[in-house]
């Protein structure tokens, strides 16, 4: 297992370095700069030049890149010359917010998808199975911002069960935190649940054809019991990998839900920073995102051998 971890670590670091170069290059492509944005419509060329000097934008790119990387290595993403505030707390805060939101959404998606997908596979011949897979097909087609708006109209404006927007940290008030979590999590979870249901259904269908399910039935388990006792764990492996990819894409994918529900997540921070051409913050946010996604990939790669002894022995 040690060589496995060692070479994964090396690949991890290499990936981060390459990502940092790509991010920096992409940012320098962006037209317009922070100085212009700061001075807005009543800027004069001299004022813009002076501000660029103050922001250090006039230094050659290589030096800016190294200052930034050195800063990052020491754990501080530096101060944003646009907002004048330290970047690290902004990133850490917004990652926590999006983290809670996205993990809750994926968990809810799994809670919905596993039973639905299994049931669709078990009943694939009769109308229940067909409706579930049809629903999941249509579910994929529902954009999450449409689902969000409908949820707000139904559950917030007419029924008044939940607030229509806003974010409250758990420490400030559990009731407020939970009630503001429900609608955004449900709107995020719907599409993911629909996609996951399709993968669970095909994973369970594959598992049902396996010989050890037939053995389990020959041992005296009914068809459904055999599937639940023996099948589901084997079906878990493809589901884990898909859920991992979904979690990774949702980190930024949730930005639209963050905007509708006014939640200060990492996606909104990224959009705001790019709009203000606050390049240092953008680079910091993207590096954290890349780091998180690589961590998620690592967790999935570690989880799989935990579930499957065959892989555990091989590596």
């Amino acid at each position, binding site marked *: 297992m040690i060589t496995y971890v060692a070479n994964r670590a090396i690949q991890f670091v290499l990936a981060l370095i390459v990502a940092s170069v790509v991010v920096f290059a992409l940012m320098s492509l962006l037209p317009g700069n922070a100085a212009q944005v700061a001075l807005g419509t009543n800027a004069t060329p001299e004022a813009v030049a002076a501000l660029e000097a103050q922001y250090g934008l006039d230094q050659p790119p290589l030096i800016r890149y190294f200052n930034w990387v050195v800063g990052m290595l020491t754990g501080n993403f530096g101060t944003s010359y646009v907002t004048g505030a330290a970047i690290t707390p902004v990133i850490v805060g917004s990652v926590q917010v999006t983290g809670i939101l996205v993990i809750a959404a994926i968990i809810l998606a799994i809670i919905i998808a596993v039973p639905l997908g299994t049931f669709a596979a078990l009943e694939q011949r009769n109308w229940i199975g067909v409706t579930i897979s049809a629903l999941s097909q249509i579910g994929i087609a529902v954009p999450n911002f449409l689902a969000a708006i409908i949820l707000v*109209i139904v559950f917030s404006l007419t029924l008044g069960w939940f607030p229509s927007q806003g974010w409250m940290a758990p420490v400030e008030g559990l009731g407020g935190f939970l009630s503001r979590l429900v609608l955004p999590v449900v709107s995020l979870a719907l599409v993911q649940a629909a996609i996951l249901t399709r993968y669970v259904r095909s994973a369970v269908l594959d598992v049902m054809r396996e010989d050890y399910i037939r053995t389990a039935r020959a041992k005296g388990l009914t068809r459904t019991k055999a599937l639940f006792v023996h099948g589901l764990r084997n079906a878990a492996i493809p589901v884990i990998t898909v859920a991992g990819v979904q979690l990774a894409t949702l980190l930024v994918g949730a930005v*639209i839900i963050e905007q509708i529900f006014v939640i200060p997540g990492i996606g909104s921070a990224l959009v705001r920073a790019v709009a203000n051409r606050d390049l240092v913050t953008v680079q910091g946010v993207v590096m954290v995102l890349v780091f998180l996604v690589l961590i998620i990939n690592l967790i999935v790669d570690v989880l799989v051998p935990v579930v499957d002894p065959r892989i555990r022995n091989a590596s």
Partner: protein
Amino acid sequence: MSGNPSITSAGGTTTDQRRRTKLRLNASMVIGAVLILLIVALALVSFVWTPYDPSAVDPVARLQSSSTEHLLGTDKFGRDTLTWIMYGARITLMVGIVAVGIAVLIGTPIGIIAAVFAQYPWGVWLSAVIMRANDILLAFPALLLAIVFAAVFSPGTGPAMVAVGIAAIPGFARVARSGTMQVLGSEYVRAAKASNRSAPAIAIVHVLPNIASMVIVQASVAFAISVLAEAGLSFLGLGTQAPVPSWGRMLQESQQFLSTQPELALWPGLFIALAVLGFNLFGDGLRDRFDPKMEARGNV
């Protein structure tokens, strides 16, 4: 003693069983094809005829629900929604197909090359590098690509499509790589090697046809995600720009009228769902049709 049920003289049972499964499989493919043709028809007809000129503004007839002269009602500028749905079909089809096209044409070869390299001792780390680069691309938020492209090339359907397409590459690379590894492990590839076929020839002749079904499934799901991503981008002002009609933007702009005039969101949302449903069903049908493993087992 594998499961092939045919013994020379008792052929009767197997052919009708295979014909039956072929019939059932086609059901999902046929429905899918019909839906896709409906949307393609909408797009094609819009080149020739539309009830109104899409840019024709009629402030008096603003925000009407469906009526005789405006079948699906009008938007806040008084433009005919049915016309916009027909024009929008073009953009949505283009976005879906171009984005998936980019992802398939770049992602699949990357996957195949990574798998082929993994066979040779010197290629193992190269394959690892390719797959890690793939992870980085997965880690890169599609949204950031979209923002940068929109800023560099000015926001519009083009940059949005390309960004969504690039973001879908990792998915195809993974599917292609695992599929190719399976095919390269098979005995018919060993046989091909034993008869002097070169690695590229094997990749084209043996690998591509055999992983086609997996790529098709991935493509049908990717189509759905791309269409929705473009709609989402228009939410941030990055997708198709005014006054070009696109279902995504119609959906996003109908958001303000949801409680007063919901059908403004209903029609674009419905047609996006039909398009996505169509491609998914067609994808499933195609995969089962070409996948002998599925046919031998005869179940859907």
